[in-house]
């Protein structure tokens, strides 16, 4: 109410003041007083009663600021551009962070959802069996409701989609709506599927008659009964394409039958916390529950499933360096603008001095300067939003254009449209930057003392120079830090790319299908024309780090860890790995998984340093705990005879270049647990892929999960380095550009301020070269300090990166030296033009003016 009255008074301010002035005039008339003095003081005091004095002065400030921008539009545009770019890049980053870690899933009460697992003394996490899940549904101490899920990938209609087998209560528990048809229900045990809205649009071309139709998933037909609501695309990091009943697991996955006699622990359980129960209390209740069937359980973990990436310590540690890099660019922009404002404010020193001597308070002046920076920050925020939209779209296109061909079909991003969190971020960022770039100059320039200021003497205060130097040094340091990071990433990429794998991967295809069809696929493909060699393998090479196994050679008692794989007899000819001595597996050995082993050259040297490896026997101790079948497959014999010696290969991550000691055990297509069929097949890529796909569709429609050329698999390993290099390079480029323009601005300003001094020097006989050197030396000096600081910073933070990414080798002299050179050259180049201008100063004219 009061606020409203105040605003109304402000609105009709002229009327208010006229009334009051009239009233006071009448009062004086009545009292017979002579009209001594003005009415200004009363007006001022009455305005204060209404609390509009400050609003009034805001109005003045804003009007004044706008007028000054109109006078120097270049300055205003420069500030808006620099800050807008900084805010825009940060908003891009925040939008991604928001989509993965902040925005909750479109489900009922997402913050009550937790994924459960338990662990024993070995620390290995355990999932759950069907019986345990059924039991947990009746155990209401911690969760009011629980659901069980399992993930797998499948190619449907030519696109690879993430599929989920889910318990019947999945849709009702999450409260997810349905766009067409019906959700999956408790009584659904048959071959039915619900398709996600996105998959319906992208994979099935928004077919209006999809509900009721049959789709083939890994060779099995399923009837589509519904299409999920557009807002919901699953609760995994990747959008889910379709959901099937849990009962269908054994048809579409290689996992052991959930309902079979072996009770596999393969269910992921997500529960909704009972209202009023804290996660800690739930944990202890669930541990008690888990102890009933697993006495060795020592703890349970609950991971929030409100967002794609749970916002915990790990997630924050991963995002932090990225955020820091982006924030640094914004800091550079701020420093730049700060310097521009400082230069401008110093040029306005005389105006400020006049205002101080007329009685303006310092707080009032600071406020006026801050008003100016806020007025610049708001359009900068708008520009930043625009820039972020452009960069997101550009980055998305770049990503889809450059990702290795085979993986473009898998690539799916979270929805990256801005929401209220993004807008709140932009607003907060712009206000913080306004204060950052406005406050320092404002405080600095209002420091001048009255007497000196009125004398026109502004040079007695050396602090602005110190502050300016500090800002330039900070800019250069940040720029150097980003350049060093870029160079390190690029060097790592070059090193990784230069690795030779020992595998001839060109024209080799990795074909994935559910294991009960693998034997048929292998036979069918072997008959295709143009197929040179074909093999089955537990793990195709180059997909990730290779697995290690502890083995005991016959001449020692302790075990040695080497990397291993299970492959069929054709593996060595598919990848053209030379058989140096002995022989490859025979078909019979492959089919029987016979107790024989083939070792690579360096494995042989490691296991039998001074002996011939052929004919030796190798002990394979059984692992202490029953291994998870998805992650480890062990041979079924305790000892194997070495039959062959082959060339070294690098089949895991390229960065583990020293891990070339590999041993091979025999296996065969059709034995459960193998991932891949590997085919060497000549011909153009597109046509070959179609031939493989057609051949497989003839066995069962939709059988291929994916068909990847091994070239693309290798390219995918290098791809993250390329992307990191691009992002770091882009940021470093922006930083360099801003730093150069910052140095240019500061040096120009300094030269114009030192006109008189330079004029005197020239008059006294200083040569052009000496003047140039004087200006350039100052900027080079600042750049040197900045570069040294940046290098120090890089050295200080590099252990963190080296710890997170083994491929990054931060202690590499080349990036540091290269960066120092680039920064120095940039600083000299930036100060060259101002230096030239200094040379053209005519001593006669400068000495005469003033």
């Amino acid at each position, binding site marked *: 109410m009061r606020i409203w009255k105040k605003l109304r008074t402000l609105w009709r301010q002229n009327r208010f003041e006229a*009334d009051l002035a009239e*009233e006071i005039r*009448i*009062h004086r008339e009545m*009292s017979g007083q002579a009209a001594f003095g003005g009415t200004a003081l*009363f007006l001022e005091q009455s305005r*204060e009663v209404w609390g509009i004095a400050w609003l009034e002065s805001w109005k003045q400030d804003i009007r004044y600021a706008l007028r000054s921008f109109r006078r120097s539009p270049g300055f205003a545009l420069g500030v808006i551009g620099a800050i807008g770019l900084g805010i825009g890049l940060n908003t891009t980053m925040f939008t991604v962070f928001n989509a993965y870690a902040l925005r909750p899933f479109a489900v009922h009460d997402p913050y009550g959802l937790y994924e459960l697992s338990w662990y024993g003394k070995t620390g290995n996490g355990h999932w759950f069996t069907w019986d345990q899940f059924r039991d947990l549904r009746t155990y209401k101490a911690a969760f009011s409701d629980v659901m069980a899920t399992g993930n797998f990938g499948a190619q449907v209609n030519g696109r690879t989609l993430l599929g989920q087998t889910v318990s019947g209560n999945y849709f009702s528990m999450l409260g997810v709506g349905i766009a067409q048809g019906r959700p999956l229900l408790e009584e659904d045990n048959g071959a039915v599927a619900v398709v996600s809205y996105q998959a319906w649009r992208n994979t099935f071309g928004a077919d209006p008659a999809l509900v009721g139709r049959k789709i083939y998933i890994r060779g099995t037909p399923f009837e589509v009964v519904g299409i999920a609501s557009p807002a919901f695309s699953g609760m995994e990091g990747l959008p889910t394409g379709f959901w099937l009943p849990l009962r269908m697991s054994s048809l579409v996955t290689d996992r052991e039958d959930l309902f079979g006699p072996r009770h596999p622990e393969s269910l992921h359980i997500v529960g909704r916390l009972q209202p009023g129960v804290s996660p800690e209390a739930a944990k202890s209740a669930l541990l008690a529950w888990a102890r009933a069937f697993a006495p060795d359980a020592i703890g349970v973990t609950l991971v929030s499933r409100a967002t794609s990436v749970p916002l915990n310590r790990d997630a924050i540690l991963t995002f932090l360096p990225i955020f820091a890099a982006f924030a640094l660019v914004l800091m550079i922009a701020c420093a730049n603008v700060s310097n521009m404002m400082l230069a401008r404010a110093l040029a306005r020193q005389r105006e400020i001095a006049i205002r101080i001597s007329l009685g303006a308070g310092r707080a009032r002046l600071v406020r006026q300067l801050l008003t100016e920076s806020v007025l610049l920050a708001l359009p900068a925020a708008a520009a930043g939003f625009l820039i972020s939209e452009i960069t997101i779209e550009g980055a998305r296109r770049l990503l889809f254009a450059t990702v290795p061909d085979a993986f473009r079909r898998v690539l799916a991003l979270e929805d990256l449209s801005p929401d209220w969190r993004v807008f709140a971020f932009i607003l907060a960022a712009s206000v913080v930057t306004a204060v950052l770039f406005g406050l320092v100059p404002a405080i600095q320039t209002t420091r001048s003392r009255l007497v000196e200021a009125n004398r026109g003497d502004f040079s007695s205060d050396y602090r602005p120079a110190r502050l300016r130097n500090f800002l330039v040094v900070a800019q250069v340091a940040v720029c150097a830090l980003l350049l060093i990071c870029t160079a390190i990433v690029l060097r790592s990429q070059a090193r990784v790319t230069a690795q030779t794998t020992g595998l001839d991967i060109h024209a080799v295809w990795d074909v994935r299908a559910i294991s009960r069809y693998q034997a048929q696929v292998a036979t069918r493909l072997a008959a295709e024309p143009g197929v040179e060699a074909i093999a089955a393998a537990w793990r195709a090479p180059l997909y990730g780090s290779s697995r290690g196994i502890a083995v005991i050679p016959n001449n020692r008692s302790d075990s040695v860890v080497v990397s291993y794989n299970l492959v069929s007899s054709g593996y060595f000819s598919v990848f053209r790995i030379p058989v140096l001595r002995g022989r490859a597996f025979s078909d019979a050995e492959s089919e029987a998984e016979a107790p024989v082993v083939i070792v690579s050259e360096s494995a042989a040297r490691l296991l039998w340093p001074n002996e011939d490896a052929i004919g030796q026997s190798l002990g394979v101790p059984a692992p202490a705990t029953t291994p998870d079948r998805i992650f480890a497959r062990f041979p079924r014999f305790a000892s194997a005879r070495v039959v062959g010696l082959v060339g070294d290969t690098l089949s895991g991550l390229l960065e583990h270049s020293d891990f070339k000691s590999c041993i091979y055990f025999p296996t065969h297509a059709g034995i459960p647990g193998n991932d891949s069929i590997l085919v060497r097949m000549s011909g153009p890529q597109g046509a070959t892929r179609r031939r493989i796909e057609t051949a497989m569709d003839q066995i069962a429609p939709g059988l291929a999960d994916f068909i990847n050329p091994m070239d693309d698999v290798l390219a995918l390993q290098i791809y993250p380095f390329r992307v990191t290099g691009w992002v770091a390079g882009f940021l470093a480029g922006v930083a360099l550009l801003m730093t150069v323009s910052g140095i240019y601005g500061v040096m120009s300003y300094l030269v114009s301020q030192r006109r008189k001094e330079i004029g005197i020097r020239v008059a006294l006989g200083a040569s052009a070269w000496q003047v140039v050197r004087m200006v350039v030396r100052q900027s080079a000096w600042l750049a040197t300090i900045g570069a040294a600081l940046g290098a120090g910073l890089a050295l200080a933070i590099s252990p963190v990166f080296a710890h997170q990414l083994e491929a990054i080798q931060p202690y590499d002299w080349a990036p540091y030296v290269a960066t120092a050179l680039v920064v120095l050259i940039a600083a000299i180049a930036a100060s060259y033009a101002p230096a030239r201008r200094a040379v053209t100063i005519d001593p006669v004219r400068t000495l005469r003016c003033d």
Partner: protein
Amino acid sequence: MGLKKPVSHQADFLPGTLEMLILKTLSRGTNHGFGIAQHIQQVSQDALRIGEGSLYPALQRLLLNEFVEAEWDVTENNRRARYYRITARGRKHLEAEKKSFEFVLAGIARVMEA
């Protein structure tokens, strides 16, 4: 131009006393600013002289709190003046102020006599 702290308008009064006196005056009938000042001066037998500098800001405070209303009108001798009228809210406030004033006054008296 400076951002000053609100000036204390009635250094000689307890805070709020001037507003109370104005409300009391208006409770006898509507009046204009000069009339209010005259009335207080007469009744207090020249003990309390209210200057314009404190009267008008006080009236603005009362307006803002809706304790009084103001309207332009014509005086007996045909001059324009702004008349103030006490509102129901104002009367309630006056009662409350009167009580607390008496309470404080009694307290002061006790201290002075002790």
